[in-house]
């Protein structure tokens, strides 16, 4: 789990080779409440770090999910589109949103590691 990185907007990214998997943090899903809808981008789209990648909605909030890193989308999680509850159940695992082929792995260094993110979240409460 040590290869996981976080943004201050509560997205996480986990890297395997040159493929990055991206989702929202457990803290984020808890804050949102029951997720009722997820809108995912098309495979093949190029994203720069900070671009809007997806939309996640609960009954009372709609949030944009921004890509923490740059790259081309190679896969999206159709399961959470069909069953948005999956985001609440396993935000850090099966509830992932998109997979990217990294175009600039150096961007990862700017993100928080797990310990820093935990501290960051604690500061919010």
């Amino acid at each position, binding site marked *: 789990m040590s290869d996981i990185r976080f943004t201050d907007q509560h997205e996480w990214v986990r890297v395997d080779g040159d493929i990055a998997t991206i989702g929202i943090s457990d803290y984020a899903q808890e804050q949102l409440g029951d997720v009722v*809808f997820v809108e995912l981008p098309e495979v093949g789209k190029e994203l720069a770090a900070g671009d809007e990648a997806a939309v996640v*909605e*609960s*009954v*009372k*909030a*709609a949030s944009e999910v921004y890509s923490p890193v740059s790259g081309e989308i190679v896969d999206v999680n159709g399961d959470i589109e069909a069953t948005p509850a999956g985001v609440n159940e396993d935000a850090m695992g099966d509830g992932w949103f998109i997979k990217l082929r990294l175009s600039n792995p150096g961007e990862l260094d700017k993100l928080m590691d797990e310990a820093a993110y935990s501290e960051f979240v604690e500061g919010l409460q």
Partner: protein
Amino acid sequence: MRYLPLTETDRREMLGVIGAKSVDELFRDVPESARREGLVDLPRRKGELEVERIFSRMAAKNVAAGSAPFFVGGGAYRHHVPAAVDHLIQRSEFLTSYTPYQPEIAQGTLQYLFEFQTQVAMITGMDVANASMYDASTGCGEAVLMAHRVTKRRKAVLSGTLHPQYSAVVKNLSDFAGYKLEIMAPALPDTVEDIISHITDETSCVVVQTPGFFGELHDLRPIAEAAHAKGALLIAVVPEIVSLGAVTPPGEMGADIVVAEGQSIGNGLNFGGPYVGLFATREKYVRQMPGRLCGETVDADGKRGFVLTLSTREQHIRREKATSNICTNSGLCCLAFTIHMSLLGEDGYAQLARINHAAAVSLAEKLASVPGVEILNKAFFNEFTMRLPKPAAEVVDALADKGVLGGVPASRLLPGVKGVEDLLIVASTEINTDADRAAYQAALKEVL
């Protein structure tokens, strides 16, 4: 003052609890320069009787539609509204409740909205409908913005079939929002090929009204086909909802969004408002739809109930990212629509439409026999256009002097457009009797 329950004693006691000497102290945050000491220069309070007299005096200066042979349409139609409708919508629980934000104590409103949405979806032949818009004209504007979101294109084509004031509303919104628009010239009778020729790869939607502004029924099928082939949407506009009791609904002719004016069912003329905009679309576009939506769910005891749903589309949550800035629907007008439509039911709705069509056919035959009058329509429902040997605006004025409200001169809504000065748009509904039509025929003969 009869509407204000606080007495001077109450006010004194309350100021005591607050710890203020006078009510002026409560307004101390108002900058001194803006505090008004005296009364605004307007009349003082009045009793019920006096207020009623004032309105009766104003009312007497109008010719009520029901007091004369009446044939005016052009987007608002006079129909008979069953007595039960007005009685029921005046029940306190409907009339004086707010938007159903607390669903546990607003199931009455929510259930009729669900029934309204179902009725609208059924009669337009679409999958889903929202809980109404302000009216059809603003609904048109919202439909075009929705088509832009769906297609991710920014150019709409407004056909010449569209009510000119609806076009003006869409144009205003598009201009300010920075979208492109192509507005076709008004044309009669047949414009289908012409409309199709305007659809390109850049077109987000094409807006076609049926019955059109001149009363003509239009075939949407080839237009839908052409639009879809270019990746564009077809927005169908229905200005007279009674028509769908007799004619093929837009949903069966390939429309992607249907906007309709629901005033005819349950709602009076009211000099132009409030009316009720109907808005329906395909299931796949529901998240791009503007306006409130009511959905079915269950409560904590597992009982069926209704809530406002998919509200993340709306302004109070999405703020600057909302699908629309609208937060009101046309609540009580959609209740009136729902009740009237419930009274009509399957058979009554079809029969009402049949009677309307028969009334218009009969009127067209009578007026066509007046020398110099030419009926221009091929297919129409309860409204048609005739060419007169004189400017229509003058004719309508002369008819009014003879006690007949004879229709809408096309030039009133198409100022400056050439070739429409002699066109008069005439509607006939179930309210017209044979005597009304005979009176019109006689008056028109005299005026021409």
